[in-house]
């Protein structure tokens, strides 16, 4: 991303903010459309970053590592607990095309721990209207967030979740890229020189804050993508040296997901074989151990 597309310091007016967000999203758009093979792992890691901020907004204290543990160590189909469910909602966002109906909204609200409400059908319609309308993508995202919070002040989590969905919809991305929620506690959403109160959806300066946050978020996303692309290259270089029969599927999982538990077992790969495989990959420095533990290890790019 060119340096001129990133704000360096507080942004004074709406036009500046719009310029930055347009330039940044334009750069990101090329990457999203080229759909590299490691895109899955990139999206899921961005989802994790968003979930960390969302969990904080929900008043809980779980950090990245705790969220990852809750998600990957749960029994299959089991309940990951309230914080883990919030991560689940953002993972769901990052893994499906950007369309939502009333039923999907009810499910997501349940994951986010919100009180159920009757107007999901209306909300889904509003999402469709905004997606079909002629407002530019960042402003449509800001509009849906303001709309949700105006109707239900307790549903701010859902507002952020939908904002990323509407953004992807407007930009015609095949799958949403979770960007906005990760900036929730950054200076983009602080009023007055980035030090004042948090700007909430519906505030007068909200649209500008969303634009700045998207510019910063897109920059962060691109940096993360560069890092993951480098690691994916190293993984590709190490792949021919692997001898395990089921290695292909393990590699696929590494490229598709944020982390893979070392106890992974598939049809061609027992959990012992998986463990040996990951340890060998680690000696090639093709994967990292993400949890920092000697047991219950989680591997990822």
């Amino acid at each position, binding site marked *: 991303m060119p340096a001129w597309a990133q704000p360096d310091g507080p942004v004074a007016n709406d036009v500046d903010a719009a310029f930055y967000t347009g330039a940044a999203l334009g750069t990101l758009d090329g990457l999203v459309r080229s759909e590299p093979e490691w895109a899955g792992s990139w999206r899921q890691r961005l989802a994790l970053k968003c979930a960390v901020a969302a969990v904080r907004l929900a*008043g*809980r*204290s*779980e950090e990245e590592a705790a969220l990852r*543990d*809750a*998600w*990957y*160590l*749960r*029994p299959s189909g*089991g*309940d*990951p*607990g*309230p914080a*883990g469910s919030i991560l689940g909602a953002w993972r769901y966002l990052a893994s499906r095309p950007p369309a939502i109906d009333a*039923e999907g909204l*009810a499910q997501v609200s*349940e994951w986010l*721990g*919100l*009180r*159920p409400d*009757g107007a999901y*059908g209306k909300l889904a319609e509003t999402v469709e209207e905004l997606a079909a309308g002629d407002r530019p993508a960042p402003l449509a995202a800001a509009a849906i967030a303001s709309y949700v919070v105006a109707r239900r002040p*307790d549903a701010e989590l859902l507002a952020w979740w939908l904002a990323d969905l509407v953004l992807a919809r407007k930009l015609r991305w095949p799958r949403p890229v979770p960007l906005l929620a990760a900036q929730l506690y950054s200076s983009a959403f602080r009023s007055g020189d980035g030090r004042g109160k948090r700007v909430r959806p519906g505030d007068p300066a909200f649209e500008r804050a969303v634009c700045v946050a998207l510019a910063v978020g897109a920059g962060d996303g691109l940096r993360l993508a560069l890092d993951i692309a480098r690691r994916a290259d190293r993984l590709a270089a190490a792949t021919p040296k692997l001898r395990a029969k089921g290695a292909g599927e393990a590699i696929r999982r590494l490229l598709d997901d944020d982390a893979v538990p070392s106890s992974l077992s598939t049809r061609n790969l027992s959990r012992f074989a998986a463990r040996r495989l990951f340890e060998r990959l680690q000696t090639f420095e093709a994967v990292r151990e993400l*949890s920092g*533990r000697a*047991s*219950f290890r989680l591997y990822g790019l």
Partner: protein
Amino acid sequence: MTEARRKENDQPALLDTELEHLPPELRWREWMGRVEAVIFAASAPVPREMLVRIIGKNCNLDLIIDDIRAELAGRPYELVSVAGGWQHRTKKAFADAIRAATGQVDMGRSLSQSEVLVLMCIAYFQPITRGELTAFFGKEVSRDLIGVLRSHDFIASGPRSPTPGAPYTYVTTKMFLSQFGLDTLRDLPDFEALEDAGLLSKEQLLAGNVSLGLGGVGEADQSED
């Protein structure tokens, strides 16, 4: 019951939901009747999605529920919203009468003081393991106690804790919300106060910085239909 069963077989086409042939008042009464019948026939709280299927497209379910509630005002039972749905429940004032007549012990009442305490601790600090609970209470939280909570279906296994032995953590269930008359976990008493004090974390709990305001814990709403 027939209506509920028909719905589960996925044949909504057989049911005329719009009721175009009826005048508006009668139509509204019919919708009210349907909604109340479905809630009455169900053994668990009925979620909104299920009710929306039996009323017209332009019908506001919340207004229907309000009308039913207004009609039930003088009756000994009411329509309460719990665990993301609605359920008929007898009013709390009649709990003693029901207990005296049936000799039945209320499920909530059959929990001992320590079981309620452990349950509340799990609710606030889930996912949490038995070992961590033991460390917090300073005395062994037995497997039996966890078993009792589990047999009431108040808790379920969450993710495994990445500590030696990979113990399961415990999380609360929908049944817990329904029994204690909560809509979401945020409705737990003093949740916001704990949150503002930054005490809603397991590290703080184990460091001994948390008191749960234990006086009020046993008084949660435990009425049942």
